[in-house]
């Protein structure tokens, strides 16, 4: 499992901003280049939330058709391109779960083992679990220390909701805890994350820009 390149989020975003601006003016070649540079990331994010590949492909298609239509409204002063794109992809993916809820959802076969969060980390397939992803993201962004300000359960709940798109009740089910407890873990976990992430952003801003 190789860690994603250490290139910073902002740097990758800068590459995309020019393409996004051109796509906003109707430049199809720029839009194709934007897709080539960003689709593997967005597809991976969507796939974690949607599980089913065909479903994730449909969501990805909707995302880029939306991006093409909305590109002219993208405001570089308000957000970074990769942040904007990833937000659109996550929102679409989460909304699509609601649509799919009328159909039975595939669950892991070993339902009895699901109460143990450590087991959850290892089940299903060979992809890294949400906690592992959070830890890697922290490493990549030099946030390891600030992650320690979250308790273990807070980290688990936030990671399950964020990476895998689980609702409060699904997180509660996975962790075998009452929903009220999980809600407060998520809330406090996000507050702790906010404190440490905001410090990181200030550090990033203070670092000399490159490129």
């Amino acid at each position, binding site marked *: 499992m190789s860690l994603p390149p250490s290139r910073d989020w902002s740097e990758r975003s800068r590459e995309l901003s020019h393409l996004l601006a051109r796509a906003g003016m109707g430049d199809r070649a720029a839009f194709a280049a934007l897709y080539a540079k960003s689709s593997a990331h967005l597809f991976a994010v969507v796939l974690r939330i949607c599980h089913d590949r065909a479903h994730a492909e449909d969501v990805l298609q909707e995302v880029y058709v939306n991006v093409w239509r909305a590109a002219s409204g993208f405001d570089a002063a308000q957000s970074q391109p990769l*942040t904007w794109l990833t937000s659109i992809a996550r929102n679409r993916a989460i909304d699509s779960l609601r649509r799919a809820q009328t159909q039975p959802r595939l669950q892991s076969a070993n339902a009895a083992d699901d109460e143990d969060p450590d087991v959850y980390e290892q089940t299903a397939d060979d992809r890294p679990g949400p906690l592992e992803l959070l*830890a890697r993201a922290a490493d990549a962004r030099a946030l390891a220390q600030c992650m320690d300000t979250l308790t273990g359960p807070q980290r688990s709940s936030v990671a399950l909701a964020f990476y895998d798109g*689980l609702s409060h009740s699904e997180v509660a089910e996975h962790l075998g805890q009452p929903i009220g407890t999980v809600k407060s873990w998520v809330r406090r976990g996000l507050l702790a994350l906010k404190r440490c992430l905001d410090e990181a952003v200030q550090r990033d801003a203070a670092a000399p820009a490159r490129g």
Partner: protein
Amino acid sequence: MDYSHPELAERLAAEYVAGSLRGPARRRFEALLPAHPVMRQAVREWQTRLMPLTVSVEPQAPPAAVWDRIEASIGGGSLAARPAPAAPSWWQRLALWRGLAAFATVAAVSLGVLLARPQPAQPPIVVVLNATGATADGAVVPATFVASISGDGRSMVTRPIARVSLQASRALELWAVPAQGAPRSLGLVSAQSATVVRGERMLDNADALAVSLEPPGGSPTGAPTGPVLWAGKLGT
């Protein structure tokens, strides 16, 4: 609730962006966003904080077919209308319609071939949903919907032929209508663009498709609650 309250806005924005705000609460929050600058700002700040955490998700290249579908949806050059064989008037409208989704085009071309040939095993179907004459809050909606259904009946693309103006507070829901019994929801469809609908046995026993006007998240009851604005018969 006072949604302008900074602490509440902050908490809801955090959970919205983290993904744990779900169901009706999520829809309510989204509906409120346009009118609440404090909340919009809080959402942007949370997106800035949390989205970079996705760097650790291993990139996965999507299959090439996805790009082909996107390119077709945004009206790529190669999909210009071709002369169609002699056909009914709705068909001409369909053939002339620019920006037809790739799937619809494939289905339409296949159907053109079908007219001249013995029937293959699983022909795709194009259903035209005509306006029923019902109006939405006095607004006239003369546009027509087209649904292109794959031969195996497991996927469908819906698309309005002309732009449908729809209040932000309303949504369009697609239904499979059986000859007898209650309509089954096939989910929400876009008033502006193509919507892909997938499912097993979506059209079992259905002999028509209908689109109704519903509240934002779709019908709360599982049956159409608003007027049926478009309907079309399945089959020939």
